[in-house]
């Protein structure tokens, strides 16, 4: 019996494949099929153009399933929509309402302490923030809107993504199950989940936040998983040898040591969120992205470029803050030799 084990996988795959072909044949419309099934072996015209009866019926079931989802779980999506929208609106209104020098001051404050009191980084970030409004006054509010969406999307990614990454690092089955899903999330074209997002949540900020989650969470999950798995095995052994429970090892040793990688993941997540927000302007999400779209659609090259520069500045701000925080944490765990230490 043992040696037949390796045949199980190919057999299952073959059976499933034949099953697919049978389904596609049976669900094809009559005008696409020959009179009798056996005609296929007589008349080989179906070898020319791809035959219509070899069409896997995915579209109809997907649409039907989706409709069923909307009808039966409408309230659930409504609740998510209201929650996320409420979060977004309150954050946006608060920041837009603040006088702009105060907002710049807050950004300076955050950068200074996140980077570990690095003056150069803080000055660079302060300049970029100032330039957002300087490029064009109406960009200020729009950049705040975009920032709010990115931050909420980021929050969602962190809250959901890091625990999943940890689960993947600890459990091989979970890991094997999730890896193909992550691949799917990263390669599927964005409109494939943007449009359903509109059907479920309506136009605006919420489908953008969901789209950010789908697009930007995979790198965070992967890097969290990697970070935890890369923690020195001997250090984990030390933790266990001294009687730490699994939870103590996770929180006291694994997560702190995986933090550089996790921060890298958050940085990646942020950059991809920003990219997605621009795409999301095509589903009515207000922000700096729709300035670019406006420029494109009205053939106003100057406007599109100016808005593009604003996006680059935003990206620099986010990148510098998250990177410098990551570097600060990493200094702790780097192999840095200090000379002149007497033994």
């Amino acid at each position: 019996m043992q040696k037949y084990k390796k045949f199980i996988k190919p057999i299952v795959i073959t059976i499933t494949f034949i099953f697919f072909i049978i389904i596609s044949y049976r669900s094809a419309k009559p005008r696409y099929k020959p009179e009798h099934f056996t005609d296929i072996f007589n008349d080989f015209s179906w070898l020319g153009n791809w035959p219509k009866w070899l069409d896997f019926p995915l579209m109809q079931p997907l649409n039907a399933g989706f409709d069923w989802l909307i009808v039966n779980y409408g309230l659930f999506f409504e609740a998510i929509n209201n929650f996320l929208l409420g979060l977004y609106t309150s954050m946006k209104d608060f920041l837009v309402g603040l006088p702009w020098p105060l907002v710049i001051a807050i950004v300076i404050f955050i950068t200074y302490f996140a980077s570990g009191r690095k003056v150069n980084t803080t000055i660079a970030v302060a300049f970029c923030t100032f330039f957002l409004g300087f490029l064009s006054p109406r960009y200020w509010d729009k950049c705040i809107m975009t920032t709010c969406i990115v931050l909420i999307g980021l929050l969602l990614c962190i809250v959901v993504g890091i625990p999943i990454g940890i689960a993947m690092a600890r459990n091989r089955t979970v890991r094997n199950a999730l890896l193909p899903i992550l691949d799917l999330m990263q390669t599927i074209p964005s409109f494939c989940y943007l449009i359903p997002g509109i059907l479920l949540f309506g136009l605006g900020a919420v489908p953008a936040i969901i789209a950010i989650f789908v697009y930007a969470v995979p790198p965070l999950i992967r890097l969290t998983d990697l970070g935890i798995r890369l923690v020195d095995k001997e250090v984990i052994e030390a933790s266990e040898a001294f009687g730490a429970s699994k939870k103590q090892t996770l929180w006291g040793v694994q997560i702190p040591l995986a933090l550089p990688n996790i921060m890298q993941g958050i940085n990646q997540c942020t950059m991809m969120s920003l990219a997605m927000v621009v795409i999301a302007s095509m589903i009515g999400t207000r922000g700096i992205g729709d300035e670019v779209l406006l420029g494109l659609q009205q053939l106003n090259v100057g406007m599109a470029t100016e808005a593009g520069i604003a996006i680059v500045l935003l990206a620099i701000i986010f990148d510098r803050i998250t990177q410098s925080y990551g570097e600060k944490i990493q200094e702790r765990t780097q192999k840095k030799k200090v000379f002149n230490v007497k033994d």
Partner: protein
Amino acid sequence: MKFLKNILLSFVFAGFMALGTTSANAACKVHLGDFDWDSANVHTAIASFILEKGYGCEVQVTKGSTTPIMAAAFDQQIDIITEVWRDNLVQLIEDNLAKGTIIELGVNTPSSTQGFYVDKPTADKYNLKHVDDMKSAKIAKLFADPEAPGKGRMTSCISGWTCYTINLVKHKVYGLDEFYTNFDPGSGGALDAAIAGGFKKGKPVFSYYWTPTGLMGKVDLVKLEEPKYDQACWDEMTKVVEDIKANGPDVYKDTCACEYVNMSLTKAASTKFASDAKNKPILDFIRAYSIPTADVNRSLAFYMDESGGDMEATAKHFLANTGMWKKWVPADVAKKVVASL
């Protein structure tokens, strides 16, 4: 051996050259301009098919929003546009006709509608018949805009379409801007999805929409009445519209506004293409090209429901199932087209 190899390579090279030159010497080359809504797409698909299979032309299609495509045509970069919403762009068209950048090739679809629509259940319940009926806080609340608290939302055109600016002006003139936002949905697909989504969830829908489209046949929308169409009023309004398009919303000044007239959709060609004598057969074809609204609607319904999103299949379906197109082309072209179906 080396000699033989050289001979062989020379033949291959010559063969490629020959292929290249023959394609460069194609009977005709046409560059079509296509827009990002479905009725324009279906006309471009049908015209491309006939031009390729019937006339043996090399067809290139460039797709985009109203502003860039029209600009490209005025700039002689695009040869033919099969569906022009003339009355929305009347000032622009008149200017360019005067400058001699384009010529018009007659009417394509004789009638079309545009307007502000409300879903039937809500319209019936609250007796909404005229745009003025919308001007109340209670009604606006039904269509609440989650990102503009206190206001309702009218899902409008995307900013690349002229109707976006027209609706902006209309909102101001009718006094709707106090109660509603003129919301840009970002893309044509998003607009359709927003309306379809609203219906699926049973929520009130207030949106700009138009025919001929595929969606109109599938959802129950009621058109709101606006002030009756008046030519002078419309012309004055479009002047302001063009001004805003060029210089931003701050140059708005009070003007007149009235309903979208039942306008015919026309066709246009760049003067460079039109002045070339060898393009005459194509121009004659495009001049003859005309599809009634009902048939356009039918094709678009096919596109949405049965073709699985395949515009070429929709074009072929139209050509296979109607005979009207045979009158647009000489008999031999028609035969070639039928043969390739």
